[in-house]
């Protein structure tokens, strides 16, 4: 019974967070975290559950963001309308793509998603007259306070995680996992694999697109290199999934928290801890260490990725039993 309560407790904490912590900075980080929960859950659906690894999530993210941005730019309506069509725009990109490319399996499909990502990035850059190219699209964010964004992001995160949960415990979920495990066997069990792969892709595209239009509204600025970024969006989505745990409901949530926190921690030199230590101790070596740490933060991040894949190939939620055993020496009864 206790296990069932955890998500509820977490939800309560998240709902209360902006009321307790009024610091803009932390609220901002939490919004990013929630956004990555949505993207990570979406990626997890297509890759983790259905086994069709996408290296091009940014294609959907960017489509959603540009749908909202272009709407605001060309029609001068609020970019919030983009939230209504952002997910659909990503679907519009994902649908024909999946239709054509789902005949590809495994790594070939992954490469095709990567190509889609790159084509869209170059395309939006070149189509200057329509997309403003690299000038990007800039809008004035609607709210000064972060709280509305926070609750919108929280709402999206909750709905997306819940929908993952519902979906995987029903017919489509069983079908997704069957496809991941063995596509031929799945076919023989009466599963229209093409249809269900499309369904899974549609889910992923929709939520990633929604996250993209949220990003547009919240950040107020996008350009092709930001929203179609292979490294900062597509690979990050994969890392969120992998670090948290592929094919687990709450894995992406854990992964998103860790990735956002770690990234910020490395970037800010452990939230300024080393700088603080350097100043209080006045020690040159600590200062040098702080310097190295801040300069090498992407390196630290990369090393962490390598380490996690090496040590926890199924992510933190996926390898939780292993972690419990090794670190806390708690042996789960065999």
């Amino acid at each position: 019974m206790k296990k069932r309560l955890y998500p509820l407790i977490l939800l309560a904490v998240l709902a209360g967070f902006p009321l307790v912590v009024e610091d803009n900075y932390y609220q901002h980080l939490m919004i990013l975290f929630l956004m990555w929960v949505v993207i990570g859950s979406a990626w997890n659906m297509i890759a983790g559950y259905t086994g069709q690894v996408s290296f091009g999530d940014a294609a959907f993210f960017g489509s959603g963001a540009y749908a909202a941005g272009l709407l605001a730019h060309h029609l001068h309506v609020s970019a919030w309308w983009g939230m209504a069509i952002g997910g659909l725009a990503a679907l519009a990109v994902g649908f024909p793509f999946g239709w054509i490319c789902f005949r590809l399996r495994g790594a070939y499909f992954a490469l095709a998603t990567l190509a889609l990502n790159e084509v869209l990035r170059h395309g939006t850059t070149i189509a200057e007259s329509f997309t403003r190219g690299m000038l990007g699209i800039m809008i004035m964010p609607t709210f000064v306070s972060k709280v509305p964004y926070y609750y919108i992001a929280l709402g999206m995160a909750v709905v997306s995680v819940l929908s993952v949960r519902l979906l995987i415990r029903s017919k489509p979920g069983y079908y997704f996992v069957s496809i991941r495990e063995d596509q031929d066997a799945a076919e023989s069990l009466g599963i229209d694999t093409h249809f269900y792969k499309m369904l899974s892709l549609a889910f992923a595209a929709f939520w990633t697109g929604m996250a993209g239009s949220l990003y547009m509204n919240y950040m107020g600025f996008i350009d092709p290199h930001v929203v179609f970024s292979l490294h900062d969006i597509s690979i990050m989505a994969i890392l969120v999934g992998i670090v948290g745990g592929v094919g687990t409901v709450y894995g992406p949530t854990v992964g998103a928290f860790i990735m956002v926190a770690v990234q910020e921690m490395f970037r800010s030199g452990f939230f300024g801890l080393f700088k603080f230590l350097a100043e209080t101790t006045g020690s040159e070596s600590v200062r040098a260490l702080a310097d190295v740490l801040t300069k090498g933060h992407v390196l630290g991040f990369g090393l962490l990725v390598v380490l996690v894949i090496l040590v926890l190939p199924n992510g933190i939620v996926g390898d939780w039993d292993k972690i419990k055993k090794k670190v806390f020496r708690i042996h789960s009864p065999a």
Partner: protein
Amino acid sequence: MDVFLQILVAGFLKGGLYALIGIGMTLIMGVMGIINLAHGQLMMVAMYVTFVLHSFFGVDPYLSLFVAMPALFLLGVVIQKYLLNPLIKAETILPENQVLMTVGIGMVLTEVIRFIFKSDYKSVTTSYTGATFFLGSISFSWALVVAFGIAVAFTVAMFFFLIKTDLGRSIRATAQDKDAAILMGVNTRRITVITFGLGTALVACAGTLLVPVYYVFPDLGGPFTAKAFIITILGGLGSTVGAIFGGVTLGLAESLGATYLGMEYEDIVGLTIFVLVLLFLPGGFKRLTKV
């Protein structure tokens, strides 16, 4: 007509370098069955090796091939042995963990280089950097012609190595059918390590040849990784001849596209061909040439 010929020459010369990049990738992809997303980054490391040798010891870039290639071979061996092979054993839901590992490795390589050399753009200027000769009105860059020659030489050497030697045959056998190779008594684990080393050495060669006509900076790996897998898919996994075709095709297609569609379409042309081949000629040129 002049424009057309000039572009053909430019595309062809560039294609030679691409072929060399592609052969390294195709071997790795063929043998390991994974995409190596750190390929371009490894090339970048080789370019820095060449840059250091040139600017601190005055070694000519072509001579530094003898250092850069062995050095990168070792780096490749270490990566395969200690970072990629252990993942084969791990029980994971997605087989793509190895691919992600290469992403991580790529990041680490880029950042290590950035850490040492900063984000500065470095270039190696030699006496032959801008040297050209003309055939009629068509200009040839000496450095690219030499690079093309060396690339062809390595490719031919690689081809005969794969066909004539035992090791080469084992590699090809592993690339074609891993399970069968194991049954035939091939130590596939050792083969993967050697292959990764070889692939890395070849891309190191390409990088080194590129140094005199290009420049080096930490982030240049990514685009070349992309080109490498386009070439590999064009040529067909594990096919050396395919990689040569793929490389030259990509070189020509990029140049022609850039000329007649616009320079900004250069990358899109490559990607489009890539997707078309994926869909309509799965298996790449290998399907046509059967080598």
